[in-house]
């Protein structure tokens, strides 16, 4: 049952990142104006992002609506084709002749969506939904159904009560457990969880979070965990990536991001969280206004229109992700951390 280092699919060894993304880009065309005479610029949903996920790690992805986090998830599993950029799974380039085919990639990468009802076929009993993937992957029907029953037990649903039920006969939390079982049925190595607990009630959310932690240890999984809830991401992640308007603005260990956020947007996101303390309520909103439209993102640093530290350099040049000193792994895309960027708060270039 367990997939240990002997997993034949582990081609690169423990130090090679399981997932490596380079320059991923997706622009969606927008229909022209209402009469179709003029071409409108595209929505720059994901605009050149790069990151790596190590084996056995959980990468949390946070950002507000429209930042591209869900588009990124769909690009990773090729539900949509990227315009540019590479996705490398354990050293093998996805979709390349000498790499790994999309179909093979999908047997190793699976996804759990936010809407637990929409992601199950309403006309199939849940055992059939779970067995569907393995059967199409070549497993015999008998074996696939046995696996479905085993997985139902693994996700905490008693197979004797649940195998023959239909999705509408389950609660939201139970349905999301079925979706997790369905995602695990192909024995994936990487699970992409796109707001997988966001629609659940708090008391049920905690159950599913505990389940995800158990399954990760039991099946040696790697997670990409996408959420708008910073508390949940902090709880489950090893590394956290913060996105804003299609770009990565900061990435680092969970301690670095929550303990010493370097990008003003990350700081604002953290300060916008409800305080959870009646004696210490928020007095001031860290940002004004809404996130800008990703169709025409501001020039330079995309955050400069809402940033309290913005200077002229911020609207002229786009900052690149820069490693910060004094941390194991922490990068931010802000002129204030790039030595010699021209921002008054930037560090001076050191002689070393």
């Amino acid at each position, binding site marked *: 049952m367990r997939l240990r280092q002997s997993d034949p699919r582990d081609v690169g060894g423990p130090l090679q990142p399981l997932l490596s993304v380079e320059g991923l880009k997706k622009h969606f065309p927008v229909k022209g104006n209402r009469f179709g005479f003029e071409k409108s610029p595209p929505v720059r949903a994901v605009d050149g992002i790069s990151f790596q996920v190590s084996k056995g790690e959980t990468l949390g992805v946070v950002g507000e*609506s429209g930042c591209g986090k869900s588009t990124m998830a769909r690009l990773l599993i090729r539900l949509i084709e990227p315009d540019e950029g590479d996705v490398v799974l354990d050293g093998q380039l996805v979709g390349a002749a000498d790499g790994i085919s999309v179909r093979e990639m999908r047997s190793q990468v699976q996804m759990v969506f936010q809407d637990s009802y929409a992601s199950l076929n309403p006309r199939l009993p849940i055992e059939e939904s779970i067995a569907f993937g393995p059967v199409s992957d070549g497993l015999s029907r008998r074996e696939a159904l046995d696996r479905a029953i085993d997985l139902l037990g693994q996700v905490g649903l008693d197979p004797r009560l649940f195998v023959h039920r239909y999705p509408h006969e389950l609660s939201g939390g139970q349905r999301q457990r079925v979706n997790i079982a369905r995602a695990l049925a192909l024995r994936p190595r990487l699970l992409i969880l796109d707001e997988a607990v966001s629609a659940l009630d708090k008391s049920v959310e905690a159950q599913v979070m505990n389940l995800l932690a158990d399954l990760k240890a039991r099946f040696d999984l790697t997670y990409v965990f996408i959420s708008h809830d910073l508390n949940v991401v902090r709880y489950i992640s090893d590394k956290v990536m913060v996105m804003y308007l299609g770009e990565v603005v900061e990435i680092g260990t969970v301690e670095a991001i929550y303990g010493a956020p370097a990008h003003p947007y990350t700081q*604002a996101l953290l300060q916008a969280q409800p305080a959870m303390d009646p004696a210490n309520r928020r007095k001031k909103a860290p940002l004004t206004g809404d996130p800008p439209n990703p169709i025409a993102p501001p020039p330079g640093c995309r955050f400069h229109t809402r940033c309290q530290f913005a200077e002229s350099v911020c609207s002229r040049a786009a900052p690149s992700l820069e490693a910060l000193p004094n941390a194991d792994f922490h990068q931010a895309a802000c002129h204030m951390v790039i030595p010699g960027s021209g921002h008054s708060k930037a560090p001076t270039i050191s002689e070393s």
Partner: protein
Amino acid sequence: MSPAPSPLLSIRDLHVKFTSRERTVHAVNGVSLDLARGEVLGLLGESGSGKSVTLRSIQRLLPPRRTSMSGSIMLDGEDVLQMSPKELRAVRGSKVAMIFQEPATAFDPVYTVGQQICETILQHEDVSHSDAEKRALELLELVRIPSAKQRLRAYPHEMSGGMRQRAMIALALSCRPSLLLADEPTTALDATVQIQVLLLLAQLQEELGLSIIFVTHDVGVAIEISSRLAVMYGGQVVESGPLEDVVRNPAHPYTKGLLASTIHGAMRGERLQAIPGSPPNLSSPPTECTFFPRCPIGEARCTHSVPELREVTPLRSARCIKVGERQLEPAE
């Protein structure tokens, strides 16, 4: 402000039942609530707990043919449940106004925001059209919408989510209601926008002396805005009291579980204290404690009848037979 002698709103033993051909849902089962003038009551609960149905009952917004209601909802001394359609129309919007979770669907898409605000004012008050327009402008400025004059002529789809929610607050305040009902108004908003709207509501509440009932499923949001908290479960209020007391020292096992299972800062790596099971199916009226099947301290006698609300301290009550029997143990 001197404390008012009688509460602005007083709900007594409210029951709401929905019937359709397929099934019956006992959505609210004996809710009693008081709201003082100038108070912000947070109504906290999970989906299906009856919090939104309770809120909508106050304006009688539930589909009349499929809903049966009993009990009383006294608003300023008048029972909303006994009002005629004409009386209701006079109350809605002018005395009690409501803001919703999804402002995009609460506005009419084919009229400008300004037209919709003016329409409400003209409906309730005997003023000229130009006076109504002037008031609409003041309202947009009140809710801090930048360049308010242009925004009056904007259609709802031309506004961002946060701006639309501000415009809806302006619409709700257009006839100077004394009671504002808020049904998860910040749930659909981004984190950085949610906090702006919460702070705006808190400011307006103070400036205008509004009373607010704020329905939410989010403990953090409830803590930011409320002065008193009522926790709902299975169509009943299981606990209510001053915000700080309830949050710091919950009396009902459900409140305790809800607070313990809410993920926050320092829980990394810990096992979460989840409440096992799922919320009750409300196809029949409760005959026992609705939380009993999930309760860590339940006993056989919890199933004998629906527990009464018991006083925890003079300002607090909880619907648990164990309240007062033992010293409340700290959650393990």
